[in-house]
């Protein structure tokens, strides 16, 4: 009997765990180690952040779901990996520290045959002074990265709305809180949902809204832009975003690295090296992501973290990390199997794997500050990669060491963003943007590296209806209700 240990229970970890449990059945053991008691459908946190959904609507308890699926659930955080075992343990193992289940603070060594690292990111608030301490959100800004953060953001938003109702002008600053952030899409959705809420509250004229981000152009979204189909022709996300910002009266600034956050103001550095200050009454700034800080030790106890993890803390996989500068980047640099090059029984998926390089054009200010979005690896690609990795591990267990590994390259995957601006069934609007492939393939598609003809056709129904449907679809799927395998990633 083999044991698969999955670290993390987010989109990719949960997908990997549930499929592995289904495919392996009772003859093997699937263990999930995650510090959270609840699963969270992260994209809907945007709606929690404006008070349109409750925290309970976007989360559910993991325990009953894992019981039903026959998965061993350890509510704990992974601390370190011993891929060769240790002096008194021949099997490879992972050291965990409980955060719940009545064993808080206790340590345990969980041996494994295969390990899937799907820990997701550490929300690195500490990267920008004032944004927060380490992984803890600071007092000056809000965030929508977790359901709890989003709930807090919603309270702060309500406070601002109350102030505006009393005649006090409010300045809203929303975007990214560091030069190397990803997830611009989430902030983009949030700013327009906030705008929608303020308008609904009847105080839009009391609000000044500004977008600040590390993208080099509006609508980059960390992917060097996407495109959408409008009235039969393709429109760049830049042109679309610029007209949306103009239409909604939202000011913007891009190419910005937030260098410091204080009460009511931020300091920033622009791509041209110039600096400035921006005031705010309400700020939602996304933190940069880093690896969760897993350590790795050799059999003799030596620290081998640098062998397994990239300097940013993400796990090394079958990617080409020596691609060099922008002109040398190839689609083939991107991982296909997500297997660790040093240890073949170790995989990483979702945000936890180290990408070979960014997707957008790299940029830095004359002072050497990198100001460019890092690659998004969330949502659908995470799910697809999680499933592929689970498939590989199951085949390795059932068919033996020589089994063919399943592949899922982001250079062969498309992505679609349905960005909603307002939740109402009749009043919201949304845009659907697509891109193929996620990672530009300059050899196959010279120039942009993208198939610019590629769209999914125009979204027939209003996009935000789809967003609603997706919310329920994924919450349904993740809870393993009947027919869950029919719902695609």
């Amino acid at each position: 009997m083999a044991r698969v240990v999955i670290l993390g229970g987010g989109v990719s970890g949960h997908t990997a765990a549930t499929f592995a449990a289904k495919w392996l059945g009772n003859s093997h053991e699937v263990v999930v180690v995650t510090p959270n008691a609840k699963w969270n459908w992260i994209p809907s946190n945007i709606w929690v952040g404006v008070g349109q959904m409750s925290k309970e609507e976007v989360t559910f308890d993991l325990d009953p779901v894992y019981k039903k699926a026959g998965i061993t659930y350890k509510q704990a955080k992974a601390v370190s990996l011993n891929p060769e075992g240790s002096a008194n343990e021949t099997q490879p193992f992972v050291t965990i520290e409980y955060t719940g289940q009545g064993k808080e603070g206790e340590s345990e060594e969980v041996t494994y045959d295969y390990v899937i690292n799907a820990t997701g990111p550490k929300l690195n608030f500490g990267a920008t002074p004032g944004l927060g301490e380490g992984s803890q959100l600071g007092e000056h800004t809000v965030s929508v990265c977790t359901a709890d953060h989003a709930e807090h953001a919603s309270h702060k938003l309500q406070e601002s709305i109350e102030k505006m109702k009393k005649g006090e002008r409010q300045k809203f600053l929303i975007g990214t809180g560091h030069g190397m952030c990803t997830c611009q899409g989430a902030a983009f959705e949030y700013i327009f949902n906030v705008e929608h809420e303020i308008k609904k509250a009847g105080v839009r004229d009391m609000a000044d809204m500004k977008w600040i981000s590390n993208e080099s152009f509006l609508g980059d979204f960390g992917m060097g832009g996407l495109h959408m189909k409008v009235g039969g022709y393709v429109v760049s996300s830049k042109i679309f975003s610029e007209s949306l910002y103009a239409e909604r009266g939202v000011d913007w600034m891009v190419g910005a690295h937030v260098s410091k956050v204080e009460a009511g103001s931020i300091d920033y550095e622009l791509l041209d090296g110039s600096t400035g200050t921006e005031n705010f009454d309400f700020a939602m700034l996304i933190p940069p992501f880093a690896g969760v800080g897993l350590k790795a030790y050799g059999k003799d106890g030596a620290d081998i973290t640098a062998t397994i993890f990239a300097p940013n803390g993400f796990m090394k996989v079958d990617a080409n990390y020596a691609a060099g500068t922008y002109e040398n980047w190839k689609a083939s640099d991107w991982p296909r199997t997500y297997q660790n090059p040093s240890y073949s029984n170790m995989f990483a998926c979702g945000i936890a794997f180290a990408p070979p390089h960014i997707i957008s054009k790299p940029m830095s200010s004359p002072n050497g500050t990198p100001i460019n979005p890092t690659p998004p690896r969330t949502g659908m690609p995470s799910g697809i990669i999680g499933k592929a990795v689970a498939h590989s591990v199951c085949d390795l267990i059932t068919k033996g060491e020589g089994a063919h590994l399943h592949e899922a390259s982001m250079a062969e995957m498309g992505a679609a963003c349905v960005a909603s601006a307002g939740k109402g069934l009749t009043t919201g609007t949304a845009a659907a943007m697509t891109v193929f492939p996620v990672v530009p393939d300059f050899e196959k598609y010279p120039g942009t590296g993208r198939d610019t003809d590629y769209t999914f056709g125009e979204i027939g129904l209003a996009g935000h209806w789809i967003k609603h449907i997706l919310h329920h679809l994924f919450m349904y799927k993740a809870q393993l209700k009947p027919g869950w395998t029919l719902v695609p990633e």
Partner: protein
Amino acid sequence: MVLELLKYPDERIRLISGNIRFFDASLQNIITDIVDTMKANELEALSAMQIGIQYAVVVIKHGEAYKPYINLRIMGKSGEIIETERTPYYENISVDVPRHDKIKIFYENEKGEAQYADLEGAFSRVIQHQLDYNYGSTFVDRIDKETKRRIDEHLPEGLVSSSNSSCPTIFYRDYIKRAYKYVMLAVWFSFLLPFFTEDATLLANLFLFDKIALALVVPIVIAYAVYAYYESVQYKQCTSCQLGNVMGTVAYAVVQWLILTVVTFLWVSP
């Protein structure tokens, strides 16, 4: 080499340009072609896409010098000015376009060195105008809907030359959708008949027809749902979006069907 300027209704104007990654002889050739074409047509500014080259290169004439702006970006802006613009693409059209008054730009020179500038007035406008071509756009995407509609009517083939033919993803499920839509449309029209006749047999036949038609819609919608699911999972990506769309479409069809059924039994039923 002097190249031909893209003119309406050339669809290539809608292509999105790639960033320049290699600052080598091929870039020099692009710049030379742009400059030659500018000289031949006495132009003050030209983007690579305007001569069919899908790269983010813009050349602007300053006095007698031609200066390339590569991988242009606008980082910040302020103010708004409305002025009349023209483009060689849409000949004989001039239109008032709002642009940012002041902009902060990033670009690279021929050697790939990062450059920055703060611009205002006419220069700022030219840069914004030329940058649109890099993103598959022209000033028509910058103006109000009413003006856009007037231009659309004025042009012989309309603003949007359909590029549907180049889209590889045609959903066959849409044919099934059309089938049940037509059937339901026929039922809608049948509701008019009782206004014009009181012939009992005719109305009885109409009721029978409507019942058969409505019964027919059910298997077609089911077929649509099943086939659409099959079709959406053929793609490796965005299957969930498509599925969401399909579910919405089916729900919409069910609601329509229910309304039709209720009306049929209340209104058409003899």
